[in-house]
Structures are given as structure tokens and as C-alpha cells.
């Protein structure tokens, strides 16, 4: 009997490592000398989190799934971008990233790492693309589906702020600046192949999927800019920029993009595929490419991962402007019905913005707080690894956010729901490093160096925010 138990335990423990060479349980990237150079280091074992329940031995796997989020696949050559705002910092710091030209390659490297895990389902929790552009979505879906990917737009090759001839030293130019990566941009624009996700995948919409720069609803004027041939290279000095607060910044971006191009512009090869997507088209393409079903103006749906786990996907993205979340009363009612229909199954709730981060989510949270089957809410958007225990009268659940693929640490997350020896459950979660292939490793290195990126902002979180056993 004892021997049998041991074998079972070994099997369960072995699952996490099965083929997942990029599992951070075994090995992950560290900067041992704090010098800005990442090296392969030892893995991070699970941290046992017992805020909601005492620890107990796992005996049976109930479900295995993965999450990746905020891939921000971006057409970095697009004129509908505002990289010149990046230097003002604050809310603008995501308008330019040194590694931004490599977003398709990073997503592909993540797909490979997730495939190695062999999960039952994969959830993409929003901001799959960066700028609501048709060609961005085409690239992202090609990567997730598998096959040939064309990361280029406009004329062949790279043409943008990072090119060798760019006279603005505040942008990192990989051909000339340190760390020097000769030919990186040219290589980033070449066709490549993606293996595609092997497991069914489920999309969640994010503000960048639906809004230009994640802030502004697509308009005809903006569409003209995106598909046009002029690109702003230097902001008009008369334009006063303040990065003081996010809402103001959003208004500023909207204003800048909507009222023509305020500053010195340069020619950029136009590309009609840069056209901006209206929400119905975006949702339709996402539904068609993924396992998400349903219809209607919101991408909300539910699905099961195995017989014991129900996943509920919420749509929290505003359609007008701004990156703050919203959940309408109609959707709250829908959520109530979904929770009711879940029966005795455990429930995880996915959304782009974490429900704890915006006041409009209070009614939805109240529902979850009273449901004893909810074990976790899982989100993205913050680009940060975080796991918080939410204590509720119904037993509590875990509020989980995951780092983006756009910023360091560029990690995805694996989840395994296990039954424990005392008849309850635990959610094991651990980070997955992308495999670094196809220049994605360079992207990770650059994202680590980025002074506005995940390193100084602590996006990797604490150890207990990454690899943990969450007892419930």
C-alpha cells in the first residue's frame, strides 16, 4: 500500500517535468553577478502557500493547463505608434521596447515551451497584439496555429526607429549600440515557421487587442495614419507631454493620434494590412482560430478542462478608450449563471485585467467571493507575476497574475490542479521560460536590460509569486 502511494506521488511529481525543459522548476534564468547578463541557473522549487488551507500531500492530477499573456505581437514599423513618447516614462514606457521587433519570435518560443508541457488547454489572457492592427493579428494567429509566419510589414526589411541609421540615440539600435547584435532587425523581419499550439487554446481579449496603443478606439483618422506613409520621428516641441497619470496619458495619446501628426514626420513604406480592426472582426477572427465558442459583442465564454475543472472567461475591455477594465451588469448576470451551471466542478476565472484592480469588477468579485468552488482568478495586463490569497466566507481563492511576454521575465505559467490526500485540492503553478530560440533569447536579454522594463519594475515578482503550491 505504501509502495503504491509512493509510485503515485512520483508520477504526480514527475508530471511537471515531463518534457518541459523550460520549466523553471528545473532551471531558470538568473543574473548571478547582478551585471545585466542572464545565465542559466538552478530551478526554483515550489513554495507551499497555506494562507487559505493547510498543506496536504497531492495524490491525483485533476487538470493541467497553461497560460500566457500580454504577448503584444506588434508591427513595430507601423506609423500608428508613438515610440517618441517612451522617453517621457511613466505610462508611456510601453510605447517603445528595445526588444519590440522580436515579439513574434518570443511568442513562438513560448508556444514551443508550452507544447513541451503537453497541457490539456492553453489560455491566452489578452493583449495578444499590441495595436489593434489587422497584420498583427494575422501574425499572432499564424504563430498559434502553426506554419509560416511573416513578421514584416511595409517594404521588405526593417524600417523604424531602431534602424542603424536612426539618428535618435534614445532608441536602442541593435546594429550599433551595446549590446550589439548585428543584423538582428533584418533577421527579425524574415519569414519563419511556428509549430503552433498542440493543445486547444482559449483567448481572452485585452485592451491592446481592441484599442490603438491599448488606449484609443480605432477611428477612420487613425486608420488613415496606420495605413499611411508618414511616420512621426520627432514630437513637435510645442506639444507638452506629461506622464504624470495614466488617464491623462491616455487622453494625450488619443489626442496625438487623432489630430494628425504633431511633429516632424518621415516617409515610411505604407502597408494596407496595417488597417485597424473593429471589435466584431477581431472577435470573429479570434473565435474562428481558437477553441473559444460563442458569439456576440463580448468575448465571454466558459469551457471545461477535464471533468473536474470549469474555466470561465470574462471580457473586461472597454470599447471606448483607456486601459481600465469594465464588467457590465449583463456580464455579471451571465457569470452568475455560469457559476451555477458549474455544479460540483472547481472553477477558475480568466480575465485580462485582474478583477481586483478596477472598481467596476466589484459585483463580479462579490459573486466569486460567495462561491465555494472558485479556486483562482487568473489574469494578465499587469505584466507582473503575483499570487495573492483572497480570503472569503466561502473558503477563499487565489488571485493570480502572470508576467507578460513583452517585458522581462517573458514567462508563461503552468497550472496543475491536484487532489490532495485530505480530499481537498491544491493548484500547483510554475513559470515557463520560453526556449530562447530564433532570437527570442536576445529579446529576453534586451528586456532584462531595459531600464523601463520588468527588471527595475520587479515584474518577475517574488519566489512565492512564481512557483507555488496553492492549497485550498
Amino acid at each position, binding site marked *: 500500500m505504501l509502495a503504491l502511494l509512493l509510485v503515485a506521488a512520483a508520477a504526480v511529481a514527475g508530471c511537471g517535468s515531463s518534457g518541459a525543459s523550460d520549466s523553471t522548476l528545473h532551471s531558470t534564468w538568473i*543574473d548571478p553577478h547582478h551585471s545585466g547578463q542572464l545565465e542559466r541557473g538552478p530551478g526554483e522549487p515550489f513554495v507551499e502557500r497555506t494562507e487559505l488551507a493547510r498543506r496536504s500531500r497531492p495524490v491525483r492530477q485533476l487538470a493541467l493547463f497553461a497560460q500566457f499573456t500580454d504577448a503584444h505581437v506588434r508591427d513595430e514599423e507601423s506609423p500608428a505608434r508613438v515610440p517618441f513618447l517612451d522617453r517621457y*516614462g511613466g505610462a508611456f514606457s510601453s510605447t517603445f521596447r528595445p526588444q519590440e521587433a522580436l515579439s513574434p519570435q518570443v511568442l513562438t518560443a513560448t508556444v514551443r515551451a508550452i507544447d513541451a508541457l503537453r497541457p490539456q488547454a492553453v489560455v491566452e489572457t489578452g493583449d495578444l497584439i499590441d495595436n489593434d492592427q489587422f497584420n498583427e493579428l494575422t501574425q499572432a494567429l499564424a504563430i498559434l496555429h502553426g506554419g509560416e509566419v511573416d513578421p514584416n510589414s511595409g517594404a521588405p526589411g526593417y524600417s523604424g526607429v531602431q534602424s542603424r541609421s536612426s539618428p*535618435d*540615440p534614445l532608441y536602442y539600435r541593435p546594429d550599433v549600440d551595446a*549590446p550589439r547584435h548585428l543584423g538582428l532587425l533584418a533577421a527579425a523581419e524574415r519569414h519563419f515557421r511556428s509549430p503552433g499550439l498542440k493543445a486547444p487554446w482559449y483567448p481572452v481579449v485585452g485592451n491592446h487587442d481592441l484599442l490603438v496603443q491599448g488606449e484609443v478606439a480605432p477611428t477612420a483618422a487613425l486608420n488613415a495614419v496606420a495605413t499611411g506613409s508618414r511616420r512621426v520621428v520627432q514630437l513637435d516641441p510645442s506639444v507638452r507631454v506629461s506622464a504624470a497619470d495614466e488617464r491623462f496619458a491616455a487622453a494625450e495619446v488619443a489626442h496625438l493620434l487623432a489630430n494628425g501628426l504633431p511633429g516632424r514626420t518621415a516617409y515610411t513604406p505604407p502597408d494596407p494590412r496595417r488597417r485597424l480592426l473593429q471589435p466584431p472582426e477581431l472577435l470573429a477572427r479570434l473565435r474562428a482560430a481558437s477553441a473559444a465558442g460563442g458569439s456576440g459583442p463580448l468575448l465571454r465564454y466558459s469551457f471545461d478542462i477535464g471533468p473536474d475543472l470549469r474555466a470561465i472567461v470574462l471580457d473586461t475591455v472597454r470599447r471606448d478608450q483607456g486601459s481600465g477594465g469594465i464588467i457590465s451588469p449583463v456580464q455579471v448576470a451571465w457569470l452568475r449563471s455560469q457559476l451555477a451551471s458549474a455544479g460540483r466542478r472547481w472553477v477558475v476565472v480568466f480575465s485580462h485585467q485582474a478583477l481586483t484592480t478596477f472598481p467596476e469588477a466589484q459585483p463580479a468579485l462579490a459573486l466569486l467571493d460567495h462561491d465555494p468552488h472558485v479556486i483562482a482568478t487568473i489574469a494578465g495586463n499587469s505584466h507582473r507575476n503575483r499570487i495573492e490569497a483572497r480570503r472569503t466566507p466561502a473558503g477563499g481563492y487565489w488571485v493570480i497574475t502572470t508576467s507578460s511576454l513583452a517585458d522581462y521575465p517573458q514567462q508563461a505559467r503552468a497550472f496543475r490542479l491536484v487532489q490532495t490526500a485530505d480530499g481537498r485540492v491544491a493548484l500547483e503553478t510554475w513559470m515557463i521560460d520560453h526556449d530562447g530560440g530564433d532570437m527570442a533569447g536576445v529579446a529576453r536579454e534586451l528586456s532584462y536590460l531595459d*531600464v523601463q522594463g520588468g527588471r*527595475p519594475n520587479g515584474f518577475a515578482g517574488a519566489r512565492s509569486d512564481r512557483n507555488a503550491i496553492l492549497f485550498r
Partner: protein
Amino acid sequence: MTLPGGLTASVRRLRVHPGRTLIAALGIAAAAAMLGAAVTVAYGLHTGFDRSARRADLPDVIARFDDQPQQRVDARLRTLPNLRARSYRREFTGVPLDANGHASQNGVLQAVGGGRRGYAIVAGRDLRRPDEAVGERGVAREWNISVGQRIGIGNARLRVVGVAVSPDNVAFPLAKGPRVYVSQSALSPRIGTRVNIALIWLNDPSLLDQTLTQARAASFGVGGLRFLTRAGVRTTIDQAAGIVIALLVAFSVVALCSAGVMLMASAQAEVERRLQGIGVMRAIGFSPRAVVGQHVLDAGVLALPAGAAGIAAGALVASRPSANLLESINELPPGAALLGPLALALLLVVLLVAGSAALPAWRAARRPVVSVLRRGELAPVSRASRFPAGFLGMGMRLTAARRGRAFATVAVLTISAAVVLAMLGMATLLNGLRNDPGLVGKRYQLTVNAPASEVAAIRRVPGVQAAAPRYVLFAADSFLLGESLKVVAYPGDHTPFEDPPLASGRRLRSNGEAEVGTGIADALGVRPGSELAIELPSGREVRFRVTGLVRAFDNDGRVVYTRPARLLAADPSLTGEIAVKLAPGADQRAVARRLFAGGHPAQRITGGTTRNASFLSVLAALLRAVALVDGLVCLYILVQALALTARERRSTIAVLRASGAGRREVLLVLAGAALVVVLAAAPAAVLLELAVLGPAVSHLAASYVSLPLHARAGQVAIVVGALLVLAVAAAALAGRRLQREPVVAGLRSD
């Protein structure tokens, strides 16, 4: 104290001929002294910057910028990768300072914040309270300030609690302003939170460029930003003294080689003296190995004390001027760390002497015993060799007969004389660097601080041949931010004003082109045709096409010549000065007076190195000391060679004397023997200096420029003349000894 048997025997053997042993020991000591001096100077100077940087905890990067709130800067700085530590300073320049009756209006006051200091306290203690000050060593020395005294800073008087050294600049008075540190809390709270210097320490300094790229990305809105890296600091110090230091180090290397050759020659001579003994030992059955062993032991027993004494003496002589030199460039003397290299030098001396004894002893010991007993064969002198008739010629033949030794003597003498010549060349160069701007490629003699619009008016001043606006700015390579450089721009052809020789490519012809000094070109790997991007202090980047590489002396060759159009476009606030070239024969002072009268105060241009007289006199003392030692070495070589010849040819001399040769004739023979060596060595030395030593020293000192290090005709004449005098002096010395002994002594020795 009892010695092992072999050593006792060695000591006994050496005691048999105390005079000869003493001479040999003196020779070893002289060479060792040279080595000791060379090691002391070279080690002290070569490692000076790194050592002092380590002691002072010099930051990897010093960022200077326009006054900012410290919090604002820190918010950006702390996001840098590879950041180990940071601290901030507020610098004020032009602060009136006074102490002990000395005063300066150019004082530099640095208010230091918490965290790492970036300077080393060498006396007293560090700052603790607002009413305290720490003085830089240069000003403390120059103004005789000791800990506990008060120093006037503006209208405040603070107590000096310590003396600090930081090799981030040269020391006062080499630096223009005396520097004093106070704590940030000494400033009024109103300005105390603003800073203009950030000291940055990195975890891995080799990744400096990568960190600086990020720092630049984070620098938006911080005006006047300049990064000064350790390499850049070194260049700053080099500007003041580096070429001289490099020359000294290069010279020491040469002296070291010369000492080595000399030691070898002297050890070989010693064996030759004992050739007979070798023959006897072999005849009574000693193995070659035993013979060699004995000679090695004897040589070692002699070399160890003699070498130690010599090295100690050399180190002692050189240490004071060397330390003075280091102090003037804000560096610290090596202290006990020097003992290691000196011990190595001693080991080298002993090994060299023992090895040099072993080789000829081995050769001799393996020859047929009879031939050794016959005192070795003399090289047959070819009949074609023509020496002057008479006793002089005879002396020459005596030397020439010993071909191997004659060659060695000539070689050592050649090297020594060439070193002396190189030193004289260096002295001339130093002098030139001080006085002659032309030497460093500057063809203008005055500068006027006036806008470009004044050029026409200045051109009309009598005695002015040409005038042009000259823009200078310090910047960094935009792609490798750790590489600092100096940009010099003239609107038109720059060659009438500055014409560093072209090493490759062509001169610039348009606004978008640049000529690059080989110093920075090597660091960046640019060639004619490459693109050069310069990061201006304003944060803008300007690019040029490199048309040629030039051997420029300025700023250690880290200089770029171009036209100002693009610089002005990127930074319209850039202002220049006006370079004034005098008409041939025009008097610099007179023209300066006329310019002044016209409302254009002019500054005179000097050479590339410091104007500080005491600094140069320290250097001159160092050079003279080494030159003196080298001169003595030459004398020693000659005396040694002659003594050997005289000893070996004692019977010949005795026969001459028996035949009625007097003092004069004997002297002539000896003089001939010495002269033949000198006559061969003198031209060889000149050739060596011109073709090898000069260029080699120049390359070692500054690979980015070719320094005119060749000795002038007058210097050659002096050195050759001195050698001749030395030859006669050596002959007189050797002759005196011979003359004192009865004739029969020479005959009996056979």
C-alpha cells in the same frame, strides 16, 4: 653561521681575489641598480592609476549633468542594470578658497552625499559634520595644510579633518583649481538636494557600454549629460602627464634590457678570467657538470648580495622622484607592493648572472682540456684587418683578437649609449612639448575668445596670417558610450591650423566627413569609409563619414577633426574660439598685445603637455638620475673590458715594458683596446637609437602618434665624445693599475 660546504668553498674562492670580486660585484650592483630604478619607476607608474583607483574606490563612471534634484536623478539611475552602487555630489567651481596665506579663486568645492565616496583618505579622517572639510592632497601639499587647520571656503571657515586622494583628475597645481570636499549637509537645505555629479559603480565593469546605453535611454530631460569612464579619467590624467609617464615606462623597459645584457657580459667575462682554472679542474678529473656547477654557485653567491644591494640602491634613488610624480597626478605610490617586483628583479639578476656564468663555463668545460689550459685559442685575426700602426693599433688588435668578448662589449656599450641617446631625445621632446605647439601638430599660436563674426577683424591685425573659428567639445562615441573623444571643428580647411599627419585615407572635404585620431579609431575599430556617430552632451547624435585616420597628439589621439555645421545644427548653443595663426617671424607677444588693444584678449598656445614647471623638473630629475647611472654603466663596461684584456695580456704588456715601453705607450695600447670598442659602438648606438629605440619608445609611449624621439646631431656628438673620453678614462684607470706593479709580475703569471 655555518654555510654548506659548497657555499663555503665558493666564498673562499671569491675571497682569493678580493679586488677582482669587488669589481665584479660592483658591476652586478650597477646593473642591478639600473634594474631596481627601472622597476621602481615602471611599476609605480604603470600600475599607479589602477592601484589608486582601487584604493580610492574610484567609480566606474562619473556622470556630470546640469543641476537636478537628487531624487529625480536617482529614480532613473537606480533602474540601471549592472549597478552596484551610486552616490551623488554637487560641484561648485570658481569658489574662493584660502588657507595658510595661500588663496585661489578657482577653487572646486564638491559637496558629497551619503554612500561611497570615491576618494581615499590619506591623512586624518573622513567628513562627519557640516562644519568639516576634507582637502585634496594636492592642495594640502601645495598650501601646507595639515589636519586640524581651518580653510576658508567663500566666506565660511571650515576645519580640515582629512586629506583625500582621488585619481579622477590630476592634482593641484597641475589641475587648475584646488579641490575641497564638504558634506552635503554643509550646504543650505535649499540647494542641498540638487546634484550635478553621479558616481556610479558597476558589478561588472566590462559591461560598461551596455550599462551606459541604458543610462542614455533613461537620460531624457537631463541636460549637459557627460559620462566620464575610468578609461576617460585615465585619458584626462594622461593629457597632463601620460605621454611622459609612458615614455618613462618605455625607457625603463629599455634600461631593463640593457642591464640584462650587461649582467650577461660581466658574468661571461668572469668565467673567461677563470678559464685556466677550468682547464686545471678538468685535467684533474672534474666533470663538466661539476665545473659548471661551481661557476654557477660562485656567480650566484656573488650576485645575490651584490644584486640585492644594487636593486635596493636603485629603488631608493628612484623612489622619491617617482613618488613625487605619482602625487602630482593624484596617484599613490605602490608601497610594499613594490617588494614583489623588486624581488622578482633580484631573482632575474641572480638567474641571469648564474646563467651567463653557466653558458661559457659549459662551453669551456667541454673543450679539449689542453686547449683550455693554453688559455683558450685566440681568434685568428684576418690579415685583411687594417688597424693603424703603432701602439694604439696594437691595442685595437688585442681587443679584436677576442672576437666574442669584443662583440659582447660592443653590444652592451651600443645599447647603453643608445639608451643615453634616447634619453636625450626624450628630454628634447619634453622641452618641445612644453614650448612648441608645432610639435603636437598645432600650427596656430594664439586663441581669442570671441564669436566667429570677429574673425575678419582679427585677420586684419598686423602679424596675423590667418584666423578661423575653432570649435571644441568633449563627447562620446554614440555606439560605444564608454569611449570618450574630443571633437575639433573648423568651418574650412583645418590643416593651416592643425595638421596631424594622415595615417591613412584622405583629408575631409565636406561637412559630413571627419578625420579621426588613431587613438580613438583603434578603440572603435573605425577605418576610412566607416561611419562615426558622436553623442553630444546635449543628448543629440551626429554622424560623420570617416575619410582618414590621423596621427594626432591631442587628447591621446582620441580626437576627431571635422567641420562644425552638423555640430551647430545639433546644438546651436555651441560656441567656439578663434584660432590665430601668426605670420612668419611675427612676435607672439606683440600680436597678443595688439589683439588685446583691439578688444580681443588672446591666449598663448603651448605644447601638448602640462605647463607646470615643478612637474617637469621632477621628470628631469628622474631622467638625469637614470642617465647618470647609465653613464656610469658605460664607464664600467669599458673598464671591465679593459681590465679583462689587460689581465689576459699582462705578459704582453710586461714584454712591452721589458722592451722599454713606458707609461705613455702602455696607455696608448690600452686606449687603442678601448677605442676600438667605442668606435664600433658609437655608430651602432646612433643607428640603434634612430632605427629601433626611438621608434620603439615612441610606440610604447603613444602608439597613436609618432613622436620625434631621435637624438639631434649635437646630442650624438656629445654622446660619441663622451664615449671617447670614457674610453681614455678607462684606459687611464686600467693603466694605473698595470703601471703600479713591477714588470716581472706580468711575466711571472705564466
